[in-house]
């Protein structure tokens, strides 16, 4: 089985390498992209889309179809982690640790023992991470709001400065992951559950594809945001700018949710019980 896998990898690798021979030279000024596509983007992008950041204009508008599938790939990665790792039947762990909050005494309960009632005075703690990490908790609590606002800024400001849905989404996901690391996984799952991450991840991709489909319904090509001008109440050039913002928000939602989803599955080996 391994040999077959190796052979497949070698076959496809050499096929890709063979394909690369037909590429134009690196930075060749006579290659078709340099002759036709790049000058058009550089000269016309602001007039056509009203977006000063060329990278965003190319990524979300001219090559929006490509980016839509990049978002889908990220969602598929989250889905693959779920399919491979998630353990759906509930397993009782070998032992659980509980901390009595008023006294700080730790209880160790073996498999089959009676668990403390879910009252306010006991909290479950991870078996491999026992200490009170006051410094880490307070720092993460202090940093998180700034991190989230910065993430929203990066998503919303992708038109004018470096940034966009992917980067902002990762920062937003990192804020949740930081919470899960500094407190514990169970508390994070209580706040943003597995279902929420899955639904948000697919909703983000749906926003992107739905925007494209809406353009089609309105009589333009798929992902031609100019068609949204009537709905948004602006001229077609500005509508392309706003259309990019809509899909960037979709990308941001999808990326942040999938990052958190992948973290939940990877850090607890699919059990969603005790994290890192």
């Amino acid at each position: 089985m391994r040999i077959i896998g190796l052979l497949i990898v070698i076959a496809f690798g050499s096929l890709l390498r063979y394909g690369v021979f037909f590429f134009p030279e690196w930075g060749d000024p006579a290659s078709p992209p340099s002759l036709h596509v790049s000058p058009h983007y550089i000269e016309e992008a602001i007039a056509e889309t009203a977006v000063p950041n060329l990278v965003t204009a190319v990524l979300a508008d001219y090559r929006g179809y490509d980016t839509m599938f990049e978002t889908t790939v990220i969602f598929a990665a989250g889905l693959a982690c779920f399919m491979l790792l998630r353990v759906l039947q509930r397993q009782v762990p070998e032992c659980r640790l509980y901390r009595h909050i008023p006294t700080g005494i730790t209880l160790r309960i073996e498999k089959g023992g009676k668990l403390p009632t879910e009252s306010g005075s006991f909290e479950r703690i991870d078996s491999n991470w026992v200490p009170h990490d006051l410094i880490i908790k307070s720092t993460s609590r202090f940093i998180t709001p700034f991190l989230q606002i910065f993430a929203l800024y990066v998503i919303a400001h992708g038109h004018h400065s470096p940034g966009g849905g992917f980067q902002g989404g990762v920062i937003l996901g990192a804020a949740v992951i930081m919470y899960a690391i500094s407190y514990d996984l169970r508390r994070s799952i209580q706040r943003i559950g597995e279902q929420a991450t899955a639904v948000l991840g697919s909703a983000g991709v749906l926003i992107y594809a739905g925007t494209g489909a809406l353009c089609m319904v309105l009589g333009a090509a798929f992902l031609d945001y100019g068609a949204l001008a009537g709905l948004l109440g602006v001229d077609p050039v500005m509508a392309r700018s706003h259309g990019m913002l809509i899909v960037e928000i979709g990308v941001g939602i999808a990326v942040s949710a999938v990052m958190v989803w992948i973290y939940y599955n990877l850090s607890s080996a699919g059990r969603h019980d005790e994290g890192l």
Partner: protein
Amino acid sequence: MNILVGFLLVIGLFFFTGGAVGILRMPDFYTRLHPAGKLDTMGQLMAMGAMALYVVGLDLSLASVLTGLKILLISVLVFITSPTATHAIVDAGVRAGMEPWTKSETEDFRDLGA
């Protein structure tokens, strides 16, 4: 003004160099984190201060002062996060049972009451 900016940058580079040498030369995990956490924080303070001064020194206006303040905010962020990160890494090292380096090899880490 430019002399001051250059001076701060050189001081910052001095700290960064010290940090890099320390990471390479220190004997174990915990001591290596010491230069990594402290000297980098100090070095970036100097470098960011130099940049903020440079921006303000180019032309003194509200916009440039705001840019300078934003650069200094990066310093504040690193000042809060870098020691916390170092603290968390040390904590993880202790949890994983990594013993600190001792010169004589006779002292046992567990005797320290950890």
